[in-house]
């Protein structure tokens, strides 16, 4: 099956900042995670895929269409759901009114069927009981679900989610994880996040961006395996460790090149990610 999104050598510059420096990525059906530190270019890449920004160079094909072409861009937008990093809501709108407003902007007609669709997506994010409430009166987690409902309008083939779980408490995060998991059935979802647990739990594929470049692309287990043999426990922080922290039981979890005799433990995706990004930062510093 051909990928939903094909990005080739995409570049983007803002004034003196090179946000993307030749990014090549493919996104296919299922949930693809996008990891990277702040300023890595994740949001820029997502905004390009959401057809909000145009790249300076390279090519993007979404659903086999070219977003640079105005007609194609409109067709892509009909099959696209986008949840920005910090969704905002106009004052005075109830949940139903806001989602209905977005539905009108997505040109869903006629009114009766549009309202059916609005009710469907509100039910999908489990907000039917508060659909008459003002959006501003809801908690942060509920507001994110309202924004996700708006993104799900029209049953999009591509869902672009920019840090949807940022600032949510653990229960809200798990709830959101369940929603994204459901949303990823039968469609492509690109999920940008800082939460490596979310990527490990949800994604079949993960892309690590760093300073506008792709550092890694593969499965979450492949990323975790990058740290195989590089994670060990010791009573104290090992000076050879790149990163180390004291765990709850008093032992130190060390990441880096282990000393002789150290017993390696099974690495997590977070270990692989930290080692990958940390190594690149050390190279840059050297």
């Amino acid at each position: 099956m051909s990928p939903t999104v094909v990005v080739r050598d995409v570049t983007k510059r803002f004034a003196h900042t090179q946000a993307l420096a030749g990014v090549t990525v493919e996104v296919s059906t299922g949930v693809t995670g996008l990891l990277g530190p702040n300023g890595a270019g994740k949001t820029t890449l997502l905004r390009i895929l959401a057809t909000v920004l145009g790249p300076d160079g390279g090519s993007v094909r979404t659903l086999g269409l070219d977003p640079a072409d105005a007609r194609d861009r409109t067709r892509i937008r009909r099959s696209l759901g986008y949840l920005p990093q910090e969704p905002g809501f106009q004052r005075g709108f109830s949940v139903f009114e806001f989602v209905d407003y977005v539905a009108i902007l997505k040109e869903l007609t006629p009114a009766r069927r549009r309202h059916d669709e609005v009710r469907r997506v509100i039910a999908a994010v489990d907000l039917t009981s508060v659909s008459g409430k003002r959006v501003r009166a809801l908690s942060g987690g509920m507001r994110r679900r309202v924004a996700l409902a708006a993104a799900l309008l029209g049953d999009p083939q591509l869902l672009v989610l920019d840090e949807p779980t940022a600032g949510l408490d653990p229960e809200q995060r798990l709830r959101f994880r369940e929603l994204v998991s459901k949303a990823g059935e039968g469609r492509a979802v690109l999920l940008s996040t800082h939460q490596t647990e979310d990527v490990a739990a949800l994604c079949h594929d993960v892309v690590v961006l760093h300073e506008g470049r792709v550092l890694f692309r593969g499965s979450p287990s492949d990323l975790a395996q990058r740290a195989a043999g590089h994670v060990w426990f010791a009573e104290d922080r090992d000076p050879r460790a790149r990163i180390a922290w004291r765990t709850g039981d008093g032992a130190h979890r060390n990441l880096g090149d282990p000393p002789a005799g150290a017993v390696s433990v099974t690495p997590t995706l977070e270990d692989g990610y930290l080692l990958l990004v940390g190594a690149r930062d050390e190279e840059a510093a050297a």
Partner: protein
Amino acid sequence: MTVEMVDVHPREVVGSSRTAGPLLALGRREARRIVLSPVYALAFGLVFVTTGIGSFTEDALPTAEHVYEFIGLMLVMMGGLLTYLAAHLVTSSARRTNADRQLESSTMSSRSRGGALCLGVVFGPSAVAAVLLVVLAVIGSNATFSGDTTPVAVVELVQIGLLIVGGGVFGVMTATWLRFPGSLLLGFLVLGFGTPQMYQPTVGPVDTLPWFAPFVTGPGFADDSWVNLGSQSWHTAYLAGLCCLAVCAVMLHRRVGRGRWLLASGAVFAATAFFGWMQV
């Protein structure tokens, strides 16, 4: 915790941008938002309490003349300004609340959204004003007035309606082009203080229209002949031209496909300039 994904086929309901349906639907929605703006409730409530009740209680019950004066004064003195404020606030609300980030990737272009807001001005406050103007016309033709009140001619009622449309589309235009927090106040000052500065009080009837375009008044302005120079009719056409110019300015904000809107704007500008020259 249960999450239900309802099994329907919503792709079927995705419409086409070539139809007017979504534009009209959005226009109606924006009309509702503008009309329900707290600006109207606050201002009309304040004026009603401070002036309306006072004038009514003098004679126990409001006479037709009282109602006529009150509605007329509200529409002339406040209709345009309040509609400007309401339309500006609705237009800029997505930017002020960061909701525009979600709306950027919608199928409907920013030009269509601007057009829908202009439609909202017509469908909403202008429609309400039209009803009130009809009420004024009916009262004016049936009631007996004392010497203090002069019934307004039909053409002047149309002009009042155009002032309200003009205020609204000017608000949409200002919020579309001046995307910074002070633009609301800036436009308000231009409307509220700028035009009276250019106002040349010359003849009687026009001094009831001190907002928007009174600076083009002249000695022959009160001539009611339909096509004569200096007639009210030319002034009406001029006000309509100003409204259309504001709509063109909204349409010109988006760079894509600007060419034909530039041509249209040129034609509207020429016609408005012609009407402006003919009315004085």
